[in-house]
């Protein structure tokens, strides 16, 4: 009897003693690793990604699922897949992060995929858009876009606008090649003809020869894809100087976000872009997002697709953490928590397809116009609930 009592007392005492510890355990910290570009040639979109993350934290706090979220940022410093792999290794092995986010360039993610698979770390790709990326790891989930979505939308918009003769001019690197493939496939499928294509080397400084070639071709639509920044500015100026902008439908992807429009002059008016976000989108999330952004960073800052992608990426990560409330972190269930969900994003509704792990979203066609004396992107058409396209061949 006494022994029973003693046992019970001991048990009760132990539980009583452990209870506060258990409560403390509920307040444990979970670490998230963000692989980003703070310096180097992609510092500009890198800054946008950081911004998106910060705004999300502003609006949603840094506690979720009973855990405190600690974010560890790592700087790629430029395109260097070896660095990406090393950073991810360090984040997972040394810093013990449970979930990874960030990843602007495709090569950032693909180099790290082996490590991610080995360590079973759920990963949200914020911007990296290559179609083949998701095959490299079952743990990848995409918060940005599959580049095919916008490329196909561009082709469909061109067809819708009655265009049948296209020129495709892209920068000579993987995303550019992807755009070429998807645009061509969708445009030809709709009865259009690709008159000519070209790939401009990334180190192109003077785009006049390229613009000249395009001018000499008999076309009615030009599909472009160049990295934002110096290349986009040079290319569009060259096109405008040759009169290509005025004579044709010129459609790109993310070359001229509202935030970048101060780099361009009026010759950019009429430039179209197919993308999953536009600053002018009228929904409550976008309003809140934009307001928080301007409040924190000043009225001169504008939201961009990179910032929104990061914002939504964080939302997915928080969903993953929330799913682990009250139990030890399990990578598999955390990853699954992001599949099939729909979140309300500043871009509209974003659904992660449970089978393909790709985003399903609206793709907007934006056009640059002068609104009250300022250059702005306005949405002229929307393709609803676009899934990640699959190429026929």
């Amino acid at each position, binding site marked *: 009897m006494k022994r029973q009592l003693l046992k019970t007392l001991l048990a009760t005492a132990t539980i009583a003693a452990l209870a506060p510890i258990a409560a403390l355990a509920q307040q444990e910290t979970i670490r998230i690793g963000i692989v980003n570009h703070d310096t180097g040639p992609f510092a500009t979109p890198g800054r946008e990604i950081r911004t998106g993350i910060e705004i999300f934290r502003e609006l949603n706090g840094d506690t979720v699922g009973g855990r405190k979220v600690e974010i560890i940022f790592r700087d790629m410093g430029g395109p260097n897949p070896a660095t990406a792999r090393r950073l991810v290794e360090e984040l997972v092995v040394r810093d013990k992060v449970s979930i990874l986010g960030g990843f602007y360039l495709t090569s950032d993610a693909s180099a790290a995929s082996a490590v991610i698979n080995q360590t079973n770390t759920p990963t949200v790709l914020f911007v990296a858009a290559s179609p083949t990326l998701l095959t490299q790891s079952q743990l990848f989930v995409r918060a940005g876009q599959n580049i095919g979505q916008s490329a196909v939308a561009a082709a469909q918009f061109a067809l819708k606008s009655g265009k049948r003769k296209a020129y495709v001019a892209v920068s000579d690197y993987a995303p550019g090649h992807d755009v070429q493939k998807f645009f061509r496939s969708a445009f030809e499928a709709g009865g259009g003809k690709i008159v000519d294509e070209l790939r401009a080397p990334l180190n192109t400084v*003077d785009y006049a020869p390229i613009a000249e*070639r395009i001018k000499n071709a008999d076309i009615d639509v030009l599909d472009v894809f160049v990295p934002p920044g110096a290349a986009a500015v040079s290319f569009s100026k060259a096109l405008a100087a040759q*009169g290509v902008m005025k004579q044709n439908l010129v459609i790109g992807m993310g070359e001229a976000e509202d935030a970048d429009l101060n780099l361009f002059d009026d010759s950019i008016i009429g430039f179209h872009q197919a993308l999953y976000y536009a600053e002018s989108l009228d929904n409550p999330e976008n309003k809140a997002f934009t307001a928080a952004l301007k409040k924190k960073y000043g009225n001169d800052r504008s939201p961009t697709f990179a910032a929104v992608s990061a914002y939504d990426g964080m939302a997915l990560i928080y969903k993953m953490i929330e799913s682990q409330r009250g139990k030890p972190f399990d990578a598999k269930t955390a990853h699954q928590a992001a599949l099939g969900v729909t979140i309300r994003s500043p871009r509209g509704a974003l659904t992660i397809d449970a089978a393909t792990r790709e985003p399903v979203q609206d793709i907007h066609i934006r056009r640059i116009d002068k609104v009250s004396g300022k250059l702005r992107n306005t949405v002229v058409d929307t393709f609803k609930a676009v899934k990640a396209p699959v190429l026929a061949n």
Partner: protein
Amino acid sequence: MDQLTPAVTFILLYGVSFGIVLFVISIGLVLTLGLMRIVNLAHGVFAVLGGYLAFKLPALLDIGFLAAAVTAVLLVLLIGVVLERVFFRWLFGMSELEQVLATIGFCFAFIALLTFAFGPNVLATKYPEWLSGNVSVLGRPFPVYRVFVMVAGLVILLGLWLLFDHTSFGATLRACVDNQSMAKASGINVNWYFSVAFAIGASLAAIGGIVGAGMLPLEPLYPFKHLPLFLTIVALSGFGNIKASLVVSLVVGLVDTAGRYFVPELGAFTVFTLLVILVLWRPQGLLMGWK
């Protein structure tokens, strides 16, 4: 043949205007290398600095573009003089390797400072209204901006020719290049001439940066990004050979434009393939000596 003419006119006009920008920027490097035997890998710094100043000053001081451009060039001249005294002068006695290291370091530091000051983005450069639009040249529309570039290049060329061939300053400078020890023995303050040449080179780079901003966008990474191009021109020109560097710049501009026009896929290769061929053929540079 009928198809070829418009292509040729295009390549001529655009290639030459591009080449002129390269010439104006690289001249300073050619001079520095030729006169002082200093490998200044940070030369692009003066070009980009001139550009940033010229496009930032109008808003800052509420002045027009031309006034800002002139001010910018003068500022860079001043900065060039100071830097020459404080930094570049000391590179004179060092080995080429040490010069490479020091100037790369300078470049890094400068890029970092520029990024702190203006952010990592490309600078928004808007030329004034009178530079926009096209004119008809050789039967095709040609941007006024590019005409301006060519005119500016011509003016600079004229100025350099007058300076080097028709002033005692220029003659003395040439003497310093051709035979330094003799010049020193004749009592010429060679160091002073070198400093002046350096300052001229820096201001010319600034002009090139300002005038060329429509073709070479201004951004902090500018000095590194375009270093291979500037080095190519300098290497093919031979030491201190201004006339050669003009020819080389034009050739590079034409070849690059032609390459990118006819075979855009291989556009990245043309200039460097040309470089390899030319250097293997004539290691001392394309033209020898002053003409």
